[in-house]
């Protein structure tokens, strides 16, 4: 290739790289977020917490049956049920997950000492994942 053609090819290549990077970075940086969910009212937060408190017993029993004598797995299964509950409740109420989780956390802190799994079962992943 003649040097002039090589130079032109290089310029074209560099331009193409610059355009790709610019476009990708710009699109990523300006990608819109959905409108923020509304804030929960105080009454809703109380209700979220009460509903979670009411269901926790069932989650504990299910977890104990699924993982007898395995404390961490029981706790993890409990949290799995809780996560599904939080997702459903937040979506159904049009509020953020943070609102529901914050309400549950505040309730646990307010009613300290109750049986709310506020103590820790140390992380002990199951050795078989599949």
């Amino acid at each position, binding site marked *: 290739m003649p040097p002039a053609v090589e130079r032109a090819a290089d310029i074209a290549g560099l331009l*193409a790289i610059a355009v790709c990077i610019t476009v990708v970075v710009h699109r990523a940086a300006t990608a819109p977020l959905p409108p*923020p969910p509304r804030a929960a009212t105080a009454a809703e937060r109380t209700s979220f917490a009460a509903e979670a408190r009411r269901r926790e017993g069932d989650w504990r029993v299910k977890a104990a*049956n699924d993982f007898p004598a395995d404390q961490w797995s029981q706790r993890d299964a409990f949290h799995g049920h809780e996560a599904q509950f939080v997702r459903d409740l937040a979506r159904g109420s049009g509020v953020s*997950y943070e609102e529901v989780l914050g309400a549950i*956390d505040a309730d*646990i802190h307010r009613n*300290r000492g109750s049986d709310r799994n506020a103590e*820790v079962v140390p992380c*002990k*992943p199951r050795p078989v994942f599949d």
Partner: protein
Amino acid sequence: MISRLSSRLSLRLAFFALLATALVWHILPDAARLNEFRDVHHLFLYERSAIDTIRRYGELPLWNPYYCGGFDAVAAPQTRFLSPTLLLGLLFGAERAEILTVFFFAMIGMEGMYRWLRLRVDEPAAALLIAPIFALSGQYAVAYFRGWIQFFGFQLVPWILLGITLAARRKPIGIAISSVAFATMLGFAGFFAAPMIAIAAVLEALRALAEQPRGARGRSLMMLATTASFMLTVSMLRLWPVGETLISAPRIMAGTPGFTPRALLSALADLLVLKDGNTGMQGSFYVGAAFLGLVALGAHDRRSVRALVIVAIFVWLAAGYARQPSLFALLREVPVFAALRYPERFLWLATLFASEPAARALAGAPILGGGRTWRVGVWLVLGAAALTTIGRQVRAFERVATQRELGVVTEQRSDDFHQARGNRWLAVHFQSQGIGSLGCYETHRLAQSTLLRGDLPAEEYLAPNAIDAGSVTRTSWSPNRIKLHVELSRPARVLVNQNWAPGWHATAGTVVSNEGLIAVDLPAGSQDVELWFMPRSTLGGGAVTTVSLLAIAFIVWRGRRRGESFSSRQRSLTALAALVPWLVAGVAYASSPDDRWPPPRMTNASGSPALVDVSSESQLPATPIGARYALPLRVEAGRVSGPDDRSNLTIEIYLRRQGHIPRSTTMFVHVERRGDDGQPAAPKGKEDFFNADHQVVGGSFYLSDAPLDRLVRDEFGVHVDKAAQGVWDVWVTFGHVSGTQGRSRVTDPGGATISADRARVGTFVIR
């Protein structure tokens, strides 16, 4: 013409940039959203916390207080902020940085593959067309779907191999390329992939060595040894802290995963599909049938033999336990490889090495005829096949990525940091509130104090025995630094509701671990105390990394001026440059004042100790058995309790390892309804057999790692709500984890009833 254009860096990178743009194009509108796949909630939280710590508090992300009660962030194997991609997060935020990371890594991966292929494939255009197939393979789509962004660090593997071959060719720049690529990969959370990469690196080194003239092999070998040394020392910022973590809390993996040839072929040749909200094996390493055809075509070239042998080794490994003899099982006997999890991931390396014969097929294209028309025609057909494969890979990535469950992280900061009960399945949504999630999951046993609580009125408080000694008030908080004002009428211990780790210091008093909680013993008086985290493992590791980079720069610089690094005149200096980082490491380690982690705890899943005190061995609350097996194991006693009102049975086996047993040794536990007294078969919906086999005691240690001659108490549960009425027995024996190699013979029944080489350890009745 195409060859010349392909070999021009600018045009080649433009081609790769276009492909990378196509890869992410349809996902860019969702760049600000959160992938809600379960693993994201800890993996992404790590990255988000690191970025927040720098942006919000102006601190290095050394300590992460937002998950599991706090941990050393540099020492966690799955944090990925110790790589250049952190800059993207700082500039654009953690969410938006993810897709940019994918974009840049895809480009880097393609260029790395091109350069590595070109070491052995003469035709640039062939390398150009084949390089993207590895860099866009189905596993990257799987990784993106599951939020395993750290898997994109695998794009650096061709660079590691490139450096190794260059080093074998006695080019000093190879040392720099391999070392920096490997360190970046580890910094990008590639820690668990490192053993796999080590195998690929060794195989690459061997074949690169074999390619060298006989007279130069000694110098090549020294270059390779130097490369290996620098790969370790440049990574020391990461290796040292993570190494200490994994020694104190090993990652334990059990099971016998295996794949038939048909399943492996489906992973490579079928398109990736989602099933039940997740990816499966099909298409998970998609490179397409055309690529496999090219590999077959390229096999006719004798120069492909070594690459194909390596491909065969990796496919054999990928088959896991399904192929006998199992190379994967053999590999897992080696301690560093014991924690390898998914054998199929070796397909990744298989496709990488298979790219070479595929590129040779494109480069040669002479087999259908010798004329120019034939050659051009064949090249066009094969090239079109490669391009079609690339298109399908991009399409598969887009299809899978756009089906992720997406959420939004809402910043809703609380005034003060505190620990919450939390939830590992939603952990990011706690971090976004500036609070910690004690609900915790990691693939290793992340150290968590049992004194942590998610309901405290204050996160820093006086120890229970000093509650009347005064008061503690938090005056300032940031992830690495906690300032307190303490009024004490007498010496007392202040507790912080976070996990202790080596590296916590205080301006007054002495920092200690209080049953795993950060604690500081203070004298009486009114005082301001500052606690801060700065582990010596990170400082020492950072020093070794820095010195190593300087040493490599010196070797490369000298190499450019004076030629080979291991010529007779250069070898002493080169060897010295390679040794200096190790000297720094030794001095840093020896002079580290930090406490060390305690040895791993051996516990059952119930939390009870798994080792019986020697003094208690004569008073076991269980039925004596004393059965011996051909494997050097002795079941001393057994106890079966329950079932309780939840239909849960608790089984305790007291056993002793009396000699070496393979890591694959498993305890077979059969909970079986007695059938010898004419009981009818179990009615519909009921069971007369339950299995509780396990290779690992309580998830904390392999049977093979049970201390020699110490009595182990293995406690586990079985849910028997579907058990049919009748008398039930619990039987125990041992054998290979796959269950396919029979049972260990009972050599001495002791006091036990034996049936089919199983000792009965207990009985219960279902009424």
